[in-house]
């Protein structure tokens, strides 16, 4: 049965379905609708929702809460994400399960508060110091908002790392009719708990690609958290061997598990020379463009990228085979096209990569994309 709702409502529902019980945020257009829903609903699950004094405190409170065992989420837009930056790095270093929703609006700086954009795509990847890998999911439908929000929590728990939901003003604020009773409820994943009968070493892993077991602050074990370079006991260290191990561990615990992190939807048409690759709100224009193009007798395939980071390289690579022309529509001046071009360069013969881009605060129309389909 259908409802008439927006993406903010569905992200909140997805968060509750995944077991979210803590939210801290600071009002910012166009992410405020998520804040308001979480603050209103969290008392119902014995959770806590708070409006913090700024974005730094928002993510700080979430990190503190997450280390007591809470499933925490925060939501913001570009200017707020900029203020999150240092704490995003800390959440990576301290291995904090955390979901961060970025409702993209036109930047840089205050930019266009009520204007749609996909300008944070590379910022999400490289938005904190150190260059370590992040996970970012990107919904292009309300059903995706529900599934990918649950998945974001699950991945945050599984890998003990911040996971982004990259969305935008239109996805969050436009109302849409949707069959909500077909939304997919996925199995909840919880962080692995440290056994109570063994000594607890906060950052101990057997292999670099493993994720350390968790003991909450206030639980059976005395635990240690640190933002600084540390050994497996969470003690500050400058010893090369320890530093090297911690650094490579933070890299490998994501990179070695790429097969768990690739989410795409390929709609391949046999013999199509053209593939359109897109994500988020722009993927909808792409799908409409493909429908129109096919109706007029053209052959075209589409790929919706649901996991922006790490780049789903295997899925991209496979979908590029036999393709001579790749169109990448996005609401920025070619940020994800860089990734597509990088992977296209390994295909022989190398497909031509074409961007369709807008940065005027309007959506890319299906006609603009269809115009590039030969």
């Amino acid at each position, binding site marked *: 049965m259908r409802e008439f709702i927006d993406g903010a409502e569905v992200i909140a529902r997805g968060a509750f379905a995944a077991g979210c019980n803590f939210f801290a945020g600071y009002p910012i257009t166009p992410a405020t609708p998520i804040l308001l829903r979480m603050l209103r609903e969290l008392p119902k699950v014995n959770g*806590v929702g708070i409006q913090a004094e700024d974005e730094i405190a928002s993510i700080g409170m979430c990190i503190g809460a997450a280390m007591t065992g809470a499933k925490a989420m925060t939501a913001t837009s570009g200017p707020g994400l900029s203020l999150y930056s240092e704490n995003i790095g800390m959440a990576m270093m301290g291995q904090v399960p955390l979901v961060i929703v970025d409702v993209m609006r036109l930047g840089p700086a205050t930019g266009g508060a009520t204007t749609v954009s996909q300008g944070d795509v590379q910022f999400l990847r490289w938005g904190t110091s150190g260059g370590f890998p992040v996970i970012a999911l990107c919904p292009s439908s309300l059903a995706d908002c529900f599934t990918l929000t649950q998945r974001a929590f699950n991945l945050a728990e599984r890998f003990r790392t911040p996971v982004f939901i990259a969305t935008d003003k239109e996805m969050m604020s436009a*109302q849409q009719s949707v069959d909500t009773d077909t939304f997919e409820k996925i199995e909840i994943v919880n962080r692995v708990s440290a056994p109570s009968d063994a000594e607890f070493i906060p950052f101990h892993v057997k292999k670099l690609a493993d994720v350390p077991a968790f003991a909450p602050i206030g639980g059976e074990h*005395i635990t240690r958290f640190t933002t600084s370079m540390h050994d497996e006991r969470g003690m500050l260290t400058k010893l090369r061997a320890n530093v090297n191990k911690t650094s490579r561990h933070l890299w490998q615990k994501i990179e070695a598990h790429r097969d768990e992190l690739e989410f795409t939807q390929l709609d391949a048409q046999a013999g199509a020379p053209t593939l359109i690759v897109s994500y988020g709100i722009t993927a909808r224009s792409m799908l409409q463009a493909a429908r129109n193009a096919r109706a007029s007798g053209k052959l075209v395939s589409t790929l919706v990228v649901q996991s922006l980071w790490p780049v789903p390289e295997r899925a991209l690579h496979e979908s590029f085979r036999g393709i001579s022309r790749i169109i990448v529509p996005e609401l920025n001046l070619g940020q994800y096209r860089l990734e597509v071009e990088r992977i296209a360069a390994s295909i022989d013969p190398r497909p031509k990569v074409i961007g369709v881009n807008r940065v005027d605060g309007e959506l890319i129309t299906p006609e603009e994309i269809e115009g590039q389909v030969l």
Partner: protein
Amino acid sequence: MLKIEEITTYRNLERNRYPFCPGCSHSLVLDQLNAALVKTQLDPHNVVIVTDIGCVGMSDQYFDVNAFHGLHGRAVTYASGIKLANPDLHVIVLMGDGGTGIGGHHLLNAARRNIGITVIVFNNLNFGMTGGEHSVTTPHGASTASTRLGNLERPLDICATVAVNGASFVYRGTAFDKELPDRIVDAIQTPGFSLLDVWELCTAYYVPNNDFSKTELMQTMAMLELPSGVLQKKDYPELARAYRDQSADQRGKPILPPSFIEKKYDSALTKPTRILLAGAAGGKVKSTASALAVGGMLSGLWATQRDDYPTTVMSGYSVSEVILGRDEILFMGIEEPDILAVLTAEGLSQVPRHLSAMNESQTVYAVPELADKIETRARKIVFNWQRAAPSKKSLALTATAAMVRHANLFPLDAFREAITLGQRAEIAEENLKAVQASEGIL
């Protein structure tokens, strides 16, 4: 009976020597913190030491309680999150005067909220770790690495700042105070926000740079006319507990319950129809557009709605876009409306792009006073108000009801149902009257 063994120390016995410079007061204060914890006999599992950055940031490693070492200036935010999520914990923040400066905003908000954490400021009047630069508490005239000619800035009164903003317990003293362990105990046992401003000697920098000693430390406090001892004791409700008390009756209520819209009517619409309502804020444009979409859904159609209006309320334009169709709508933008309703001058100012994109097969509905100002190739139809034009509040509803009928979008009964769904009786009646007034105007 279970014998509870007395805890004689909270120190990490594997690390019995602090790493601080000779004569640094940090060691003294940490010993007094340990003495205070021993007096409380708190279960170490329920104690969290949250450290900031700077020399004091190393302190948590010397205790056998839960430890959280975070970013510079943000210790109070982590402590607040920990306390909010688990109010049973005793959360103690150790930060320097550096962290107080960069994180001052968090400090005064924690005091204002009266969140039940204890903050101990290791106030040695300068940045020790980075080489003796001045901090927010460096006295006027003092020589530091960054104020070689003497500090021109005046120091922050930390205690007065948190006290005036609602802290439950505030104390100022020095690392040499005999009563410090007892005052730390008082602070830990205070349900709300507590802070101890503990003045110290930085023997690496501040002491040699200013020919400073224990005697001068006390003299500086007196010279700045800063009082010492317990400066505030209040009994405000603690935030984490107050939150739970307030939300107790919310538990178990349904979370974001669905509101399904069931098909009851039939629509003759065959093609996706893009509708734009261009009116004024305060004119119920957004809610009318919503009724248009819901009316379509009640008639089995798919719908989307986007709204655009200034950040202010009740002034300026309000433009809403609705798309109705037989299939799910992928692209939600409207470049070329099939129907555009020009309701007010504010609305008209927002739609010249759409008007010029429209063609003869499309329709502009307009209020009489703006009809001549509209330039478009689209078919133009003017509302013919029977007696008087509708009020600002009913204009959008009346005009849209007329369009629903005129363009045969879906049965008017569906629109009537949509405008009353979930509305209070008096609003529903007002809305129905506005629809009633639409008869014969097109």
